[in-house]
């Protein structure tokens, strides 16, 4: 890629995101109390879910310790304890869905109304495509679908990010405390590594993330371009239909059909590329799905085998290892969502900029109206 083209592309994208946030955050300012209440509620739900995750992690330990001791009374007591823990977890999961979707619905409503009203005002929907040539194709789709994606994803992503951070920090503590230190003999000396499971999970997660970045570094741009190609194809089909309705397309109009074929070909090529990117990242993600629990068991096995760790502690540590590793995977797990969000936010921003331009034009054409 040419360096200047790349720089201008990045600056252009920053400009678009800034324009999107300017309108998207408008509803936060006007409904501050409601936003703070709902946001606070969602944070409390995430923290309660974390608390339950810790409780379930401890439950794991006590249950397996009781099994190892063949202590039937404790096994049954733990089995009974699992019911309220599971019920609370299920209740919180359902509550979280309600909270997230309510926040997403309200945000979408505010932004959709804002964009739609500006689009409808002074019949701008009639003039938009005549005044501006690029970035205003398919405004209906941008208003209905892109606004939804652009307001859905940030809430899910932000909550998942917050949850990942607090989960990683909390379970670091579990790994440090339960895993303890390990002695490694080297060159006649014994090297003691404190909290070795913490270092283990950091190294393992670093390797997985590194592999994912190596295999999937094109993924976000490919998803964005696939979405863009889809939008352009949709716009081309729509324009073709409108032209045909106006009688501008003859039964065999080679150039217009060729234009449709080209747009379709672009969509298919990007989908093929998307498929290969997913194939590559699946190699890493599925490998990680298989390896992460086993790596945790293997790291804990020496301490269990020499009696320094009970079976319950072994299962608790392995579960904590997998939880922390999952938290580290936030970026990797959300690659596709991030890319979808970016492309939708860009399309909404392009429409907003076009409306800005049209409004400015209206003001210069009729200053008296603008003053009033």
């Amino acid at each position, binding site marked *: 890629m*040419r360096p200047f083209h*790349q720089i201008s592309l990045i600056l252009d994208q920053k400009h678009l995101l800034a324009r999107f946030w300017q309108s998207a955050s408008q509803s936060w300012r006007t409904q501050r109390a409601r936003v703070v209440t709902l946001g606070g509620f969602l944070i409390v739900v995430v923290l309660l879910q974390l608390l339950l995750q810790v409780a379930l992690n401890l439950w794991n330990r006590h249950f397996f310790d009781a099994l190892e001791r063949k202590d039937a009374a404790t096994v049954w007591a733990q089995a009974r304890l699992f019911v309220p823990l599971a019920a609370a977890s299920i209740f919180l999961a359902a509550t979280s869905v309600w909270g997230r979707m309510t926040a997403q619905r309200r945000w979408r409503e505010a932004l959709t109304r804002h964009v739609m009203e500006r689009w409808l005002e002074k019949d701008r929907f009639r003039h938009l495509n005549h005044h501006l040539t690029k970035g205003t194709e398919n405004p209906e789709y941008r208003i209905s679908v892109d606004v939804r994606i652009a307001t859905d994803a940030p809430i899910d992503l932000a909550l998942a990010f917050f949850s990942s951070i607090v989960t990683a920090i909390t379970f670091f503590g579990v790994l440090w405390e339960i895993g303890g230190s390990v002695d490694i003999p080297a060159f006649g000396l014994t090297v003691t590594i404190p909290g070795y499971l913490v270092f283990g999970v950091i190294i393992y997660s670093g390797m997985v993330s590194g592999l994912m970045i190596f295999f999937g570094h*094109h993924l976000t741009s490919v998803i964005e371009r696939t979405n863009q190609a889809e939008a352009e194809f949709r716009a081309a089909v729509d324009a073709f239909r409108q032209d045909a309705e106006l009688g501008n397309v003859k039964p065999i109009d080679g150039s217009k059909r060729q234009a449709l074929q*080209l747009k*379709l*070909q*672009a969509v298919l*090529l990007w989908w093929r*590329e998307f498929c290969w990117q997913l194939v590559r990242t699946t190699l890493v993600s599925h490998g990680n799905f298989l390896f992460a629990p086993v790596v945790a068991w293997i790291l804990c096995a020496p301490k269990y085998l020499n009696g320094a760790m009970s079976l319950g502690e072994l299962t608790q540590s392995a579960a904590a290892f997998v939880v922390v590793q999952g938290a580290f995977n936030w970026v990797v797990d959300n690659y596709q969502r991030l890319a979808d969000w970016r492309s939708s936010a860009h399309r909404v921003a392009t429409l907003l900029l076009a409306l800005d331009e049209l409004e400015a034009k209206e003001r210069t054409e009729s200053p008296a109206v603008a003053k009033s």
Partner: protein
Amino acid sequence: MHRIIVATDGSPGANRAIDVAAMFAKTSGANLIILTIGGNITGAQLRELADSAGDLSKALEAAAKKILGQAQKRALRIGAHAIKGQTGWGDPAEAIIDAVRREKADMLVVGRRGRGRLSGLLLGSVSQKLASLAPCTVVVVP
């Protein structure tokens, strides 16, 4: 013989097919239709095209035109006269057979190997499909 179709993707194998088809057209006085299937590019080429050109559709169109232009020059040098270029889309074998039917071609000339070596090994090459499915004489140039 009235019409000959030759398919090209710009590869050396396709160039040899153009040479043979142009020779047939020259000696028989038939019209020569050069057909290329658009969008026949690798993932790396796709990203490069999108980065440099911005509008992928236009870049694909330009790439197809370039292949056709080079092929037409090559056929003209050999001595073919009535040459027409066409771009098809979609699955190469299906698009070529559609063109053969549409143009009522008497002969189809293709190279044995194009660019799709791996997919050719897995799914059978385009020339193999054409040899068994095309409704006209098929010449496969090695």
